[in-house]
C-alpha cells in the first residue's frame, strides 16, 4: 500500500489554477523528488500534503487515511523549509525540542515557570533532552546545541532544520528546496548527506527542488511537474533516457539536450535533419515538423563522409574532465552542444568546420505539441549509420 496517495488534487488561487488534478502514489520509504521550473506548482503540492494549504479539490491519503481537513501538526509529518525557518530566539537545542514539547507536554506544562509545578514535566523534559542529544549526535552537532541560529553558518542551520524534522520520527519528511540557500560546494556535500540520512532512517522523503541535478542524484523516483501537472514520473534513468515530453527532455540533464528542427518526408516517413536524410521511420505523418533531441554526450565527431550534422565550431568550454563544443549548424537557432572526454577535439580550432554523427537509438523525437514520437530504424540502412 502506498504511504501517500494523491488523487485529483487541484488548487486555485483567485482565478489561476496552480494544480490541475495531480495523481501521485508514493511508496513507504521511497525518496521522491518533485522537480520543475518555478511556478510549476511543486511547492504548492508539497504544502497541500503538509496541510499548510487546503486543496480546492481532490484528496490526500497518508498511510491509508484521508487527511483532508486535518491540521498540519496532526498529520505527523515533518518539513524542512528553504529558509530553514529556525526560531531565531531559541537555541539549537530548544529549536529541535519544540516539536517534542508541543507533542509530549500539556499546555500547562509549557507555561513559563508554572510548568515545573505540574507533575510529569521533569521526566518528560528528561526524555526530550535525551532525544535531542541523540539527534545532535546523529547529525554531528552536539557542540552547537547552545548557540542561537544567528551564530550558525548556512550549512549548520540547514542541519538544525533537518534535526528538528527527524527528532520526532514522523510518517514522512517533506523537504522544500532545502539546499537552495547554500553555496554550490556545500550543496553538493549536503546532497550526499541527505541521501545517506534517507537510507539510515528508511523513511519516506518528498523532496521539492528546481534543480534537476539534486533530483537525479538523490531520488528513487522523480516526478517532473510543468504548469500544474505531473508530466512524467519514473526513476532518474527513465526520466533521463526516456523523456515522454519535450519539456522533460529539456529540463532534465545538464548541459541541456540539443533540440534540432527536423521534418518527416516521403512515404517511408523518414527524418530529414539539417539537410541529411536520417534512415529511420517516424510514426508520424509525412510533412510534419519534428523536434529531434540528442544528448550532448551522444554526439560524436565523424569523418566528413559519415557526417549526419555539420557546423562551425563557435566556442569551446574546457571543463577539465570533459570539453563542451558549441557548434553553429545552418538552419538551427541554437548551437549544438557536443560533450567530449578530456582531450577530445584538441586539434580543432574555433571557426573550423566540424562533422558530427550519432547513433540512431540516441535520437528522441517529439512532435509539434512536444509529445514523444516513436521511430523505427529502417533495417537496411541502419548499418550505414
Amino acid at each position: 500500500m502506498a504511504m501517500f496517495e494523491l488523487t485529483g488534487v487541484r488548487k486555485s488561487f483567485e482565478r489561476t489554477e496552480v494544480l490541475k488534478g495531480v495523481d501521485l502514489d508514493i511508496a513507504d520509504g521511497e525518496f521522491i523528488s518533485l522537480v520543475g521550473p518555478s511556478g510549476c506548482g511543486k511547492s504548492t503540492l508539497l504544502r497541500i500534503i503538509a496541510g499548510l494549504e487546503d486543496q480546492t479539490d481532490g484528496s490526500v491519503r497518508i498511510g491509508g487515511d484521508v487527511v483532508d481537513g486535518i491540521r498540519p501538526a496532526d498529520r505527523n509529518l515533518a518539513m524542512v523549509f528553504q529558509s530553514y525557518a529556525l526560531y531565531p530566539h531559541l537555541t539549537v537545542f530548544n529549536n529541535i525540542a519544540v516539536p517534542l514539547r508541543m507533542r509530549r507536554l500539556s499546555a500547562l506544562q509549557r507555561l513559563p515557570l508554572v510548568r515545573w509545578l505540574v507533575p510529569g514535566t521533569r521526566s518528560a523534559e528528561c526524555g526530550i533532552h535525551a532525544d535531542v542529544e541523540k539527534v545532535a549526535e546523529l547529525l554531528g552537532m552536539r557542540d552547537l546545541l547552545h548557540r542561537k541560529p544567528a551564530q550558525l553558518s548556512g550549512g549548520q542551520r540547514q542541519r538544525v532544520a533537518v534535526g528538528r524534522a527527524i527528532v520526532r520520527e514522523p510518517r514522512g519528511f517533506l523537504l522544500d528546496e532545502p539546499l537552495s540557500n547554500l553555496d554550490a560546494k556545500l550543496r553538493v556535500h549536503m546532497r550526499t548527506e541527505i541521501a545517506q540520512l534517507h537510507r539510515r532512517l528508511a523513511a519516506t522523503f518528498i523532496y521539492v527542488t528546481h534543480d534537476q541535478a539534486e533530483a537525479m542524484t538523490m531520488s528513487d523516483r522523480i516526478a517532473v511537474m510543468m504548469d500544474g501537472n505531473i508530466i512524467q514520473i519514473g526513476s532518474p534513468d527513465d526520466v533521463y533516457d526516456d523523456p515522454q515530453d519535450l519539456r522533460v527532455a529539456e529540463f532534465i540533464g545538464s548541459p541541456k539536450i540539443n533540440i534540432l528542427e527536423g521534418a518527416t518526408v516521403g512515404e517511408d516517413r523518414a527524418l530529414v535533419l539539417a539537410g541529411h536524410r536520417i534512415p529511420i521511420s517516424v510514426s508520424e505523418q509525412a510533412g510534419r515538423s519534428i523536434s529531434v533531441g540528442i544528448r550532448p554526450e551522444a554526439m560524436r565527431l565523424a569523418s566528413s563522409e559519415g557526417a549526419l550534422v555539420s557546423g562551425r565550431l563557435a566556442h569551446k568550454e574546457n571543463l577539465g574532465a570533459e570539453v563542451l563544443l558549441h557548434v553553429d549548424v545552418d538552419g538551427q537557432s541554437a548551437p549544438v552542444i557536443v560533450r567530449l572526454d578530456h582531450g577530445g577535439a584538441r586539434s580543432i580550432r574555433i571557426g573550423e568546420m566540424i562533422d558530427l554523427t550519432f547513433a540512431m537509438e540516441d535520437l528522441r523525437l517529439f512532435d509539434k505539441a512536444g509529445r514523444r514520437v516513436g521511430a523505427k530504424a529502417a533495417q537496411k540502412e541502419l548499418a550505414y549509420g
Partner: protein
Amino acid sequence: MSTARGISLWGLLRHVLLLIAAAIVLLPFVWMIVTSLKPQSEIFLSEIRWWPERLHAVENYTKAFDRAPLMRFLLNGAIVTVTIFMLQVLIALPAAYALAKLRFWGREAVFALVLFCILIPPQATAIPVFLLFHHLGILDTYAALIVPFTISAFGIFLMRQFFMTVPDDLVDAARMDGISEIGIVWRVMLPTALPALTAFGIFSIVAHWNDYFWPLIAVNSKELFTPPVGVATFRNEEAGTDYGPLMAAATIIIAPLIIAFLLAQRRFIEGITFTGMK
C-alpha cells in the same frame, strides 16, 4: 596644511555653537533644578543667582511631598502607562499577526480601517468617549484613564509591518511543530518582534506618561491624578507663589523619564522618532 587648520578651527567653532545652543535648550531644566534648591528669599530676587547661598533643598523637597501626594502621582503614572502598554500589546499583536500572515476574506478592508483609525487624533473623540464613560459610570477611575488607549491602531500597523518581514516559512514551521495560531503570536512572533515592540513600548509609555488632555478630563480625584495633572494642580493651588517646592515637584515628575532616557538614549530616540512619526 591650511585645510587641516581650517578643519580644526571649524571643529572648535562647531563645538562652541553647539554648546551655546545646548546651554539655552537645557536652561529651563537647569533653572528648574536650581530654583528647587533655593529658599524663598533667594527666589524672589532682582538679580540672577546661579547657585543658592543657602541650600534649601531638603526643605523644598519635603514640602513638595507634604503638600501633594507626589509618590501617588508617580505610582499612578506607572500603573496607567504600564497597563496601557500591556493591554495594547495583548490586543494589537494578535490583530497584527492576522493582518500580516493569515489569508481571509475582508483582510484588506480591515487593514484599511486600521489605517483610517491611525488618522484620528485622540482629542477629537474626547467628547463622545467622555459621555460614554459618564453613562457607564466609569469616569474618575483607573479604567477611565486606561481604556481609551487600550486600542492602538498605530501599534497594529507598526507590528503588522514588522510581521510582514518575518518569513512565512517560520510560521509554517511552527504550524508543523504543532503550535496553534494564538500560540504562534506569543511563542514565535512576539520573541522575533522584540526590537519593534521595545520601540513601540517606549513611544507608548512616554506619550501616556506625558499626556495631559485626557487625564484632565477623565479624573477628578486627587488619588487618581497622573504626574502632569498632579503637578499642574499643585501649581494652581500654590498660585505661583511658592516656587521652591513647586520646582521640586516638577523636577520629581520629570525625573523618571529623564533618567530612563539617559540610561538608554539611543533606544529612546529611535523609539520616539520612528514610532512618533505617525
